[in-house]
Each structure stands twice: as structure tokens, then as C-alpha cells.
């Protein structure tokens, strides 16, 4: 069928992730741009964007269980914490007070994910009996339980006020978290973290895309939309809910393991309810049941404080010194709240929904249908 690239003659081609050549070309251009941007972006922006990459991994995880499988989880902060500390224990340096196995990142990062994943899958059978508000409360309880454990388990977490260093980004002697030289070119710590987290995000995002377009993703959606009908069609509800929680927690574990390598320090009080809510907000704003949306939501909310900071110099009513009407952090919280409400009411499909509409508009342009 030469000359007609839009006509698919094979089912494989029809169900491919990026069915058209145009889509593949755009993805390639986008990737090159994002990878290349690290060459000229300043250090603080590199760190901020790397944080967004890591958050995106966590948001994809939450979206799998909540957006795709329909199981509301307020417990994501707990699994991020488990990942952070498992990563620190497997990949961090031991001291006289702290456990640390000093493994390479290629081992400790998957182990951080697996630890969180197994705990998620182990807790899930309890959660599976509950739905809606009750499930939300149970997962909320997990966050409080986690905060307590993280405070008390000092040999792993360092304890409150002391904390510890996260897993070390080291592979076969090479340090990603230090400035270095590759083939005569000097690369900064920030550039390396940026590229490394981007690579992990790409792998995790493609894996998630594959999961949601395969039988498992369809079963998740079936469980979410009509659980009785799903069961009557042979879908084992418990199995898929446990799977959804397990996979979601795996993603949270990987994100948690990386999250604090950026700042180089894990504090025991980081894994609170606000963190869970922030992730829910990223799902809602990005778009439930969308991998692309997860990335957009994470990027948007991670960059938002910086954008508002920037606005501080421009908007007259904002505090300069202490004279303005609002401080930037107050404005940040107001915008955050307003965005969640606004998206829930006006754009339930999130940024992804807006993006799809724009894309369809341009595809059809100059026609409006």
C-alpha cells in the first residue's frame, strides 16, 4: 500500500503505539530537543525539570491505579517514602548508625520499586474489599502509619530532624551526581541527573503505555467502569486490583528512590498527606487515564512555583519585600487550589484533553469538523 501511509493492512500496525510516520518523527524531534536542551539550560532549571521527570514517573503510577483501574489512593506518599528509603538502604552508604548496601543504581533503583511494589501488593487484598470513600480513608491511614514508621525506624531513615542521604547515583564506578568528563567534554552533575531521570522516565512511560494498551490495561478499565460486568466476563477483580496497586506502588517506589537524589537529602517528614494530594492534583490536572497527561500534569505543577515566582516581579499586587497584598507562596497555594477546582469542573480530561482537542483542530484545519 505504498503512498497511503494512513491505510493499515495489518492489525499490528493498526494497534501500534505510534501508528503513523508523522507521529514517530514528531516524537523523535521532541526527544532530541528535550535531550539537547540540557546543553544550554542553567543548572537550577535542569534540577527543576529533572524533578518534574521524577514526579512524572510517580504520577504515571498513581494514574495506573486511580485513573485506569479506578481505585482512589491517597497513599501514594507512603509508597514514595518506601521507595526513597529502600533506595537509600540498598544504594546508600552505610554509617555506624545507618544501614546502606552501596549497590549500583542499576540494582538499587529496581529494588526500590520492587520493595514498594510488594508492599503495595501485600496491602491491596485489604483495600480490594473497599471502594470509594472507604478506600480513600484506608489509603490515607497508610500515610499516617508511614510517617510514624519513618520517624521511628532510625537505622534506615536517620530519624526526624536528622534524615539521611538517598541512594547514590553510581554505575560501575561512574558518578552521575558529580561533575565529570565524558570523552573530553565536561558534564555537570545537573546535566547528568537530568539525562538519567529522563531515561528512566522514558522507559517507565513506554512500559506504562504498553500495559494500558494490552489486556491488563483493558481489564483495569473494565474493573473501573463496571465491576460486576467485568467479573461476569471472567475478570478476577481481586487479582487485577492487587496488580494495579502493585504496579502503581512500583512506579512510586522508583520515583521515590530518585526524588531525593536531586537534593541529596531525605527528610522523614517529606512523605505526608500534602505530597499525596499533590500527586492526585497532578493526575487531575494532567488528565486521568492518560500517560501523556501524567507527564504534562507533573511538569505543570512542578514548574508552577517557578512560574509564579517569575510573576512576582511583574504583577503589581504581589509582595516585593513585604509590601504587597499576597506573598508568592500564598498565591501559589491559591492557584494550586483554583487549578484543581477549575480542571475538575471545566476540563475533566485535564491538560491531555486540551491537547487532544488542539491536535484534532489542527488536523482538521481549516475545517471545523
Amino acid at each position, binding site marked *: 500500500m505504498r503512498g497511503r501511509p494512513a491505510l493499515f493492512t495489518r*492489525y*499490528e500496525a493498526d*494497534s501500534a*503505539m505510534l501508528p503513523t510516520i508523522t507521529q514517530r518523527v514528531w516524537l523523535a524531534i521532541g526527544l532530541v530537543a528535550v535531550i539537547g536542551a540540557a546543553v544550554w539550560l542553567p543548572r537550577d532549571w535542569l534540577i527543576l525539570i529533572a524533578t518534574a521527570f521524577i514526579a512524572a514517573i510517580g504520577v504515571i503510577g498513581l494514574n495506573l491505579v486511580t485513573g485506569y483501574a479506578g481505585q482512589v489512593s491517597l497513599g501514594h506518599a507512603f509508597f514514595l517514602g518506601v521507595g526513597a528509603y529502600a533506595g537509600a538502604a540498598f544504594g546508600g552508604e552505610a554509617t555506624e548508625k545507618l544501614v546502606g548496601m552501596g549497590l549500583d543504581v542499576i540494582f538499587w533503583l529496581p529494588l526500590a520499586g520492587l520493595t514498594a511494589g510488594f508492599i503495595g501488593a501485600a496491602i491491596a487484598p485489604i483495600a480490594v474489599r473497599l471502594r470509594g470513600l472507604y478506600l480513600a480513608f484506608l489509603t490515607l491511614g497508610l500515610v499516617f502509619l508511614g510517617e510514624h514508621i519513618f520517624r521511628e525506624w532510625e537505622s534506615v531513615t536517620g530519624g526526624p530532624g536528622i534524615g539521611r542521604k538517598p541512594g547514590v547515583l553510581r554505575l560501575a564506578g561512574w558518578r552521575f551526581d558529580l561533575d565529570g568528563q565524558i570523552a573530553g567534554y565536561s558534564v555537570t552533575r545537573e546535566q547528568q541527573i537530568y539525562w538519567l531521570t529522563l531515561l528512566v522516565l522514558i522507559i517507565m512511560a513506554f*512500559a*506504562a503505555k*504498553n*500495559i494500558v*494498551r*494490552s*489486556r*491488563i*490495561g*483493558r*481489564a483495569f*478499565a*473494565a474493573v473501573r*467502569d*463496571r465491576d*460486576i*460486568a*467485568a*467479573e*461476569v*466476563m*471472567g*475478570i*478476577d*477483580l481481586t487479582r487485577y486490583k492487587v*496488580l494495579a496497586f502493585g*504496579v502503581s506502588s512500583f512506579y512510586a517506589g522508583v520515583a521515590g528512590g530518585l526524588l531525593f537524589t536531586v537534593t541529596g537529602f531525605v527528610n522523614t517528614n517529606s512523605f505526608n498527606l500534602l505530597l499525596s494530594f499533590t500527586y492526585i492534583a497532578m493526575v487531575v490536572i494532567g488528565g486521568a*487515564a492518560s500517560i501523556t497527561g501524567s507527564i504534562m500534569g507533573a511538569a505543570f505543577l512542578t514548574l508552577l512555583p517557578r512560574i509564579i515566582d517569575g510573576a512576582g516581579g511583574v504583577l503589581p499586587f504581589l509582595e516585593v519585600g513585604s509590601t504587597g497584598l499576597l506573598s508568592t507562596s500564598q498565591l501559589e497555594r491559591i492557584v494550586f487550589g483554583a487549578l484543581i477546582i477549575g480542571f475538575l469542573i471545566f476540563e475533566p480530561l485535564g491538560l491531555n484533553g486540551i491537547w487532544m482537542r488542539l491536535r484534532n483542530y489542527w488536523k482538521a484545519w481549516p475545517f471545523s469538523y
Partner: protein
Amino acid sequence: MSERLLVFDEVRLSFAGVVAVDGVSFDVNAGELFAIIGPNGAGKTSIFNCLNGVYLPQEGRINLDGTDLLGLRPDKIAELGVARMFQNIELFSNLTTLDNILLGRNLHMKSGILSSALYFGKAKREETAHRRRAEEIIDFLEIAQYRKSLVGMLPYGVQKRVELGRALAMDPRILLLDEPVAGMNLEETEDMARFILDIQEELQVTMILVEHDMGLVMDIADRIMVIDFGRKIAEGTPDQIQKNPDVIRAYLGEEFETEGLDDEAPASEGSRL
């Protein structure tokens, strides 16, 4: 063709006071189109829910080709070959027609989470093989033009067909149809009747049909069971049922009894009793 596939024996199901199914027994033979009729609230859907394992009857026995179904979870019963089309559409409305039908294939698919995440080799081959079967069903039900549409947006009659397709995709041994033509116009009803007969003849799937459209039931059913207030009041061929005085009484009430005994009076084709 006369081998017994399903045995439903003295099943009793009650909800806090309401007896929905009151000691009903019937057998369904392999390849047969068995219809269950009865007034609103007679317990027809409840019988299906017992068969599916959605409700657990207090008493009785349900056996599919030698395997006891009672007490099994719905998904296990589905794996044994019981598929169902619901009275009120129960499609996954955020998914496309194709995805809904592929969900019917889910119980024949094996890929785990890891091979799905890689979408490589076995997982990909499996998706493609089942896609092929799903497409056959889409062609059979003449819904190819709706393949990639979200089912929530489709017209009612098409949604009913997608639901039939989803059940067929399971390659069931027995198919439960709960009012497949309710709310349909004449043309849609005729299409559905044609599909049901094709399923029986070409795919040799055994079916239990619950339907209020007497014309349809009398036309296509091999045997009919009539229930009222959870009790079985008659069973037989369409001809026998049309002449049965108990049936006429249940449907038309006591006052029509004498009239109903007349051979001419029972359900004429197309009328909805």
C-alpha cells in the same frame, strides 16, 4: 443434540422476605435455544444472576456439563463457558467497540504484566491473534463502522449488538440473553433475531433467552419455560405454551380465564404480553 448441558435443580433464592426464585428446575440441552418468559418481577433476571454466580441461592443445585456452579465466583463461572448479555446495557462505556469485544477475549489471554509492559514477542502475537477473532465477531454483527468509536456514544441498538459481541467473544458454551430486543424498533428486532439464529446454527452456542417480545420468543425458541412470582408454571414447545391455560391465566389474570382457554386467543405474533 439432546445431551443435557445445564441442569438447574430446585433453586431457591430469597432476599430478606422476597422470594425471587422459588424452587425452579429446568434443563437445557446442548445446542438448544431455551426461553424463559414471565411477567415483570417474575424472577427471570434473578435466575441469570444465580447462573452467573452474582447471587448465591440458598438452596438447589446448578450444574454445567458435570461441574457444579453453585458457590463459584462469577469469573470462574465465566471461565467454564457461561457468557451473558445484560438487561440494562453494561458495556464499558469509556472504551471503544473493539476494546469491549477484546475484553470478551480476556479470559483466553495469558500475557502477564511483564510481557505486557514490554509488548514484545508473545504478548504482541497474542494481542494480534485475539484481535483477529474480535474482528470476525465485529464482521459477523455488522458493526465494523463503529470499531473505534467509544461505545457510550453509540445508538442504543448498536450498543446492544456490541454487548452481544462481547459475550460471543468469550467463545461461550452457553449464552444468557436478558431481553436482547427490549426497547428496539421492528427492524432492529429482526436484525437481533437473525443474529441469535445465526449464533445457534453457525456457532452452535446453546442459549437461554429471556424476552418479553412474545412474537420473537414463539418464533425462535426451541422450548419455553414460564415463571410467575418466582415459580415455574409451565414448560414446553412454543405451541404447547400458547395453549397452556396456566400461562394464559398468569399473563392475563383470572378474569380472562375462560376467554384464554379458547384456542384462538393466546399470544398472536408480534404482540407484547
